[in-house]
């Protein structure tokens, strides 16, 4: 065991992100530089990292770094693409969302970049402790970002709730790692896999495995570990709510997928039971409570809980098809959910954000473009063709049916029907109801429209050309 030889090329995306936040920090020192420049530095840096990830995905990298601590493979590259896309989109919508006079924007963007770096480590981590550290890096940044509007009461509250619950959940996660360490004698994912091949099932191992589910379940908001999500989404700045719902969720699933389908593969009969139960619970509870919401951010929060359930359905399939459809679904979900939140930001008026669903009445005629964007995103979230949401669900359900989880798919289909009810309710309100009071809307901020346009193109493109996106995901699962 020598000091590792580092192949810097293979760490390109991470290095670019590190460099970017250093530049942001340096720029932040100069008072003369406009704060929006920081956002653009973030976006450009993330775009370069995205380009590097895409190139590496194309080139088919497959190796590891730091004595096998970091897997540099297609699987991680696909997830890095998801994270970077969400980082770029969130930075874009943040420019208009953050007040021009806000002096703390440097910290805001640095924390977003650090969170992104944490996610990348989670996706690449080939060692439980690296996954844990990546998760903590991501979470710590997000706790602060959730409470970023410190002068707003609910924002601080969201930060505190997220922090207390998150720290509590990481306690369990850490204990789970300890138990697995004891059970397998190692924390390296490939080594665990080989140790487990001939090992009997010890209580230590099973308990450790379940505590990992708890830790990931908290991060991706599975019932019953989901209750932080609605409160945090509602209280946090809307941009951050969008961010939390996209990147970190995908990151949680990235590590979840890698550990459970690779390291704990031989324990599959043990974990699949719990995954199926959690998937059914998560979809149902998320969708049912979402129908009763009147605040659009809360509704999207519960819907995001439900969507985690759909991804879990793919995980329950526990085969390559399942993994690749989960990956595609997360990409789709990231784009459409950030789009939905961006539309919510676009509906801001002089009085602040209008978060009640009833505030959206009549928007179809008053702000047709906004209503159109929001409708596309909601229709995609509900999973109608030819949007991305449909193909995402289609492949997920397909893989679960192939794996024999017919009942789970039936529950998922019923849930999709329930979800259509509350997504379309917003559309109906926008196009078919008269507003109670006239709201003074701002002119459209160009960047928000641009972001929404990007998201719409993404949603339609994936919906129409899914194989271009599913293909890489399928190749990425080859190593499992």
């Amino acid at each position, binding site marked *: 065991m020598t000091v590792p030889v580092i192949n810097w090329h293979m760490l390109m995306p991470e290095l670019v992100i590190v460099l970017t936040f250093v530049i942001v920090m340096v720029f932040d020192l100069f008072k003369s530089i406009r704060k929006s420049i920081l956002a653009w530095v973030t976006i450009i840096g993330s775009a370069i990292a995205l380009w590097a990830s895409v190139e590496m995905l194309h080139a088919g990298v497959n190796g590891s770094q730091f004595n096998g601590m970091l897997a540099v493979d297609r699987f991680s590259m696909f997830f890095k693409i998801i994270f970077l896309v969400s980082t770029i989109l969130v930075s874009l919508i943040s420019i208009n969302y953050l007040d021009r006079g806000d002096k703390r924007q440097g910290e805001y963007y640095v924390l977003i970049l650090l969170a992104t770096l944490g996610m990348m480590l989670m996706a690449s981590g080939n060692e439980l402790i690296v996954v844990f550290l990546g998760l903590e890096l991501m979470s*710590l940044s997000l706790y602060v970002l959730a409470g970023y509007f410190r002068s707003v009461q609910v924002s*601080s509250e969201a*930060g505190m709730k997220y922090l*207390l619950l998150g720290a509590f959940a990481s306690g369990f996660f850490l*204990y789970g790692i300890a138990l697995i360490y004891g059970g397998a004698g190692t*924390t390296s994912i490939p080594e665990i896999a080989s140790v487990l091949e001939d090992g009997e099932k010890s209580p230590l191992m099973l308990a450790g495995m379940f505590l990992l589910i708890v830790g990931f379940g908290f991060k991706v908001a599975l019932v019953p570990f989901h209750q932080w999500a609605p409160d945090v989404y509602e209280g946090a700045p809307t941009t951050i709510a969008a961010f939390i719902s996209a990147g970190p969720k995908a990151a949680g699933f990235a590590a979840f997928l890698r550990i459970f389908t690779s390291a704990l593969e031989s324990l599959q009969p043990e974990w699949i039971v719990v995954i199926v139960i959690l998937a059914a619970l998560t979809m149902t509870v998320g969708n049912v409570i979402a129908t009763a919401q009147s605040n659009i951010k809360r509704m999207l929060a519960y819907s995001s809980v439900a969507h985690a359930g759909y991804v879990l359905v793919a995980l329950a399939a526990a085969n390559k098809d399942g993994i690749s459809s989960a990956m595609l679904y997360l990409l789709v979900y990231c784009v459409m959910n950030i789009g939905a939140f961006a539309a919510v930001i676009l509906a801001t008026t002089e009085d602040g954000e209008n978060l009640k669903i009833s505030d959206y009445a009549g928007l179809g005629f008053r702000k047709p473009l906004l209503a159109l964007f929001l409708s596309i995103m909601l229709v995609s979230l509900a999973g109608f063709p030819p949007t991305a949401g449909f193909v995402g669900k289609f492949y997920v359900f397909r893989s679960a049916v192939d794996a024999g989880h017919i009942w789970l798919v039936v529950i998922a289909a019923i849930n999709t029907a329930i979800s259509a009810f509350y997504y379309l309710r917003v559309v109906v309100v926008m196009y078919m109801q008269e507003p109670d009071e006239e709201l003074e809307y701002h002119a459209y901020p160009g960047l928000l429209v641009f972001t929404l346009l990007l998201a719409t193109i993404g949603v339609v493109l994936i919906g129409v050309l899914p194989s271009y996106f599913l293909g890489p995901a399928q190749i990425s699962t080859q190593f499992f």
Partner: protein
Amino acid sequence: MSLEWYLALSALLFTVGVIGVLIRRNAIIIFMCIELMLNAANLAFVAISRELGDPSGQVFVFFVMTVAAAEVAIGLAIIVSVFKHRETVNVDEVDSLKG
């Protein structure tokens, strides 16, 4: 002393931490209890590490301490900013987000 004893002690310490989180309302004390849980995990790491003759467990403890320190710094800052709004750190009074 065999590993079982240490693990049992660690489990008990962890449980005390969980109970503390459940019954105390002062956010700062809840936070201390979470630290207690992390420490219990540390104890398990070191005990297992000795049993396996593998130094990784001890290194993990080092990392966990770093994380704990960072978490405490951020956590206390957030609790202070909540306190500024409400003049309280009682978690059952911080409940405006619900439903």
